[in-house]
């Protein structure tokens, strides 16, 4: 673990592989992390010297990403996915059991340096949870038995490669397919059609199709491509956002598993439309297992002249795609933070304007879209704008992949034309006693029973695809608390309101959960919400209070039932505050307690 003798040899090879390019820093750090399970201080110093980047800045980058460690973190690093859907499937008990089995506390490394166990944000396996990552590899469908087997494999130091393959099996769980999932487009088909049109007409076709971004914000894709096409720059870029981090979302995982060719086809189409020569697919670290299959597909496309120089014989149409790995930072799903991360920096959202279409990757014009957007764009060009527009609703054309999870017998991927109602999806997935649905993840909307006739689409309920179902046995306060913890963990820390506000929100929710809240705390929540909404730097902060606002609106009693009193006096666990001193002094007399009647 501690031998660093051959470190320079490793790092020299690494640096050479990445052309000593500082923009590849995060990729180099990921590979260094992968080598020993952590990044030694000497490695940072060495990289700093060779790349001529200040060491402190490299430390800053490495410490930003959850999956990179600057201290030894165990030969086996176990991370339980901590989305509310994992919890509903019993992940917390499984984690406790595993900690007991391996004699360690969550977040700490075992004394022999063998293993650490902790939680991580949603790993995108909500339809087959509870899930975990072991040394970055996704494991699904955890049961007591499986967790125990994993514990034994770790104790016996069995290499990950020798673990049962079934542990790592990921189902696609496609329950309902449509335009995208049923497509039979052969690789190259769309590109040939696009080359016949020419870049300018591709832009027109995408504009005409009415396609809007599938990442949730819904910006018209054609307008984005047009702006990028018209932008001044020496080297344009196409970036695919495959950092699918919104808890409850896993449709991009399925697209990248089954329709990667269509994704790359869409990216190449975009390159033709905007005049880009380089493309990146930014893949979330949780989907690391997809890297090799995706690389193989890229290579096949190169071999078939669908990437590289003079694509499909079109002189001067040069474009290639590289895959960059994320390393555990939800904020990198925000487009400008993603670009910062692509450049090898901390994933902090940029100030806008300027926007990525004019000043994106390395300050060059960049067209950045979601995985599903590229697929839809390819299909829109293939089938023609008019046909595409006929699907969905006037302002939300085409179809949408929905990731269904939570309390229903048939979780998985459902493709619908836009305009489908919440109720219809609930019927299809077999959820009979749903009391609420979290649409579009924690940053989205909590839809209560009375609103189940609302429709998915930019006219009513915009969504990036998450659809988490809660039945009437669920405590919506605990759901909101899980989401609040998520945002506090994922805040990048750049701006005051989000850095401090999300943490304060977390403290307050925890205080209410512990039974020490009063109406004073509800007031504080409302105050924090206002500050977060009006002054946060980016969408993370502005939407981080949504789970609380929405559940307070529809499920206020779930909060009030936990309050110590409904008056405005603050309160906390005063007798608990004496516990430490009681233990230290061995006292248990009357004076060593704060009696309830005092409170």
């Amino acid at each position: 673990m501690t031998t660093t003798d051959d470190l320079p040899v490793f790092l020299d090879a690494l640096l050479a592989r990445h052309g000593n390019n500082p923009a590849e820093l995060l990729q180099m750090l990921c590979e260094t992390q992968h080598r020993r399970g952590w990044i030694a201080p000497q490695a940072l110093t060495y990289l700093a010297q060779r790349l001529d980047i200040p060491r402190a800045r490299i430390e800053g980058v490495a410490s930003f990403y959850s999956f990179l460690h600057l201290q030894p973190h165990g030969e086996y690093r176990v991370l339980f996915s901590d989305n509310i859907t994992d919890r509903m499937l019993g992940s917390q008990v499984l984690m406790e059991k595993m900690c007991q089995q391996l004699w360690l506390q969550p977040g700490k490394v075992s004394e022999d340096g063998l293993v650490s166990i902790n939680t991580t944000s949603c790993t995108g396996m909500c339809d087959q949870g509870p899930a975990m990552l072991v040394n970055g590899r996704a494991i699904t469908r955890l049961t007591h038995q499986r967790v125990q087997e994993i514990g034994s494999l770790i104790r016996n130091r069995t290499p990950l490669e020798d673990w049962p393959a079934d542990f790592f099996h990921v189902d696609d769980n496609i329950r309902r397919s449509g335009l995208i999932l049923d497509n039979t487009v052969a690789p190259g088909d769309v590109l040939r059609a696009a080359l016949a049109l020419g870049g300018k007409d591709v832009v027109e076709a995408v504009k005409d199709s009415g396609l809007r971004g599938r990442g949730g914000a819904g910006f018209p894709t054609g307008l984005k491509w047009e702006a990028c096409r018209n932008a001044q720059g020496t080297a344009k870029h196409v970036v695919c956002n495959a950092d699918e981090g919104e808890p409850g979302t896993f449709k991009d995982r399925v697209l990248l598993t089954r329709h990667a060719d269509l994704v790359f086809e869409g990216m190449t189409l975009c390159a033709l439309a905007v005049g880009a020569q380089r493309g990146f697919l930014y893949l979330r670290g949780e989907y690391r297992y997809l890297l090799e299959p995706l690389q193989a597909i890229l290579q096949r496309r190169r071999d078939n002249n669908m990437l590289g120089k003079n694509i499909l014989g079109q002189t001067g149409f040069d474009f290639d795609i590289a895959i960059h790995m994320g390393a555990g930072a939800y904020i990198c799903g925000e487009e400008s933070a993603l670009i910062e991360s692509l450049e090898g920096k901390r994933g902090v959202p940029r100030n806008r304007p300027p926007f990525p279409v004019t000043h994106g990757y390395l300050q060059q014009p960049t067209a950045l879209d979601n995985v599903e957007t590229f697929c839809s764009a390819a299909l829109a060009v293939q089938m023609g704008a008019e046909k595409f527009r006929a699907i969905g609703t006037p302002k939300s054309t085409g179809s949408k992949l929905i990731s269904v999870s939570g309390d229903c017998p048939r979780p998985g991927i459902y493709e619908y034309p836009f305009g489908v109602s919440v109720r219809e999806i609930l019927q299809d997935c077999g959820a009979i006693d749903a009391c609420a649905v979290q649409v579009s993840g924690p940053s989205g909307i909590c839809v209560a029973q009375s609103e189940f006739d609302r429709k998915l689409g930019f006219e009513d309920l915009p969504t990036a695809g998450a659809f988490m179902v809660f039945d009437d046995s669920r405590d919506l306060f605990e759901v909101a608390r899980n989401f609040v913890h998520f945002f506090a963990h994922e805040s990048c820390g750049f701006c005051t309101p989000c850095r401090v506000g999300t943490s304060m929100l977390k403290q307050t929710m925890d205080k209410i959960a512990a039974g020490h809240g009063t109406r004073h705390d509800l007031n504080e929540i409302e105050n924090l919400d206002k500050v977060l909404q009006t002054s946060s730097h980016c969408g993370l902060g502005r939407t981080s209070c949504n789970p609380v606002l929405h559940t307070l609106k529809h499920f206020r009693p779930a909060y009030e039932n936990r309050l110590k009193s409904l008056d405005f006096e603050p309160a906390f666990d005063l007798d608990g505050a004496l516990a430490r001193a009681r233990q230290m002094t061995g006292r248990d007399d009357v004076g060593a307690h704060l009696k309830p009647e005092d409170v």
Partner: protein
Amino acid sequence: MSKKLRIATTSLAGCFGCHMSILDIDERLLALLELVEFDRSPITDIKHCGPCDIGIIEGGICNADNVHVLYEFRKSCKILIAIGSCAITGGLPAQRNHLDLESCLTEVYLTEPGLAHGHIPNDPELPLPLDKVHPLHEVVKIDYFIPGCPPSGDAIWKFLTDLIAGKTPELGHGLIKYD
């Protein structure tokens, strides 16, 4: 004014510096006494607080006794004022808050040479320390805050006369101080 306002004051985990500053309003005290009378306070030596209009508390909350006194004040006083850094932020006593109470007590009574003869005092007469020192507003509702370490006599005078006159107190530049 038909009836004098009744005021109580006390110092919890504080140094009495804020009380010194109250005395520092000097001869204006006489004018103040035209308007108010003192209930429980180091000035009167009354031990328990009766019904009051205004309670002024110096110092933060570091032990069980502080909590009892604070509750007594909150129950008895219509308006509760936190005065000084310790009452408002925890202040100097709260400088131990980033340390674990166990390591504090161990270092003071067990590992360092001293008079306690190697044991942590456990006499029931002593109020037990809380694991952290808290500003007053974390324990009860506080209506007003007069910052400063201590606030000047002028600041206290301005604040109280505003309050007694029925105005929302404002200190303004020169009187509002945190140091």
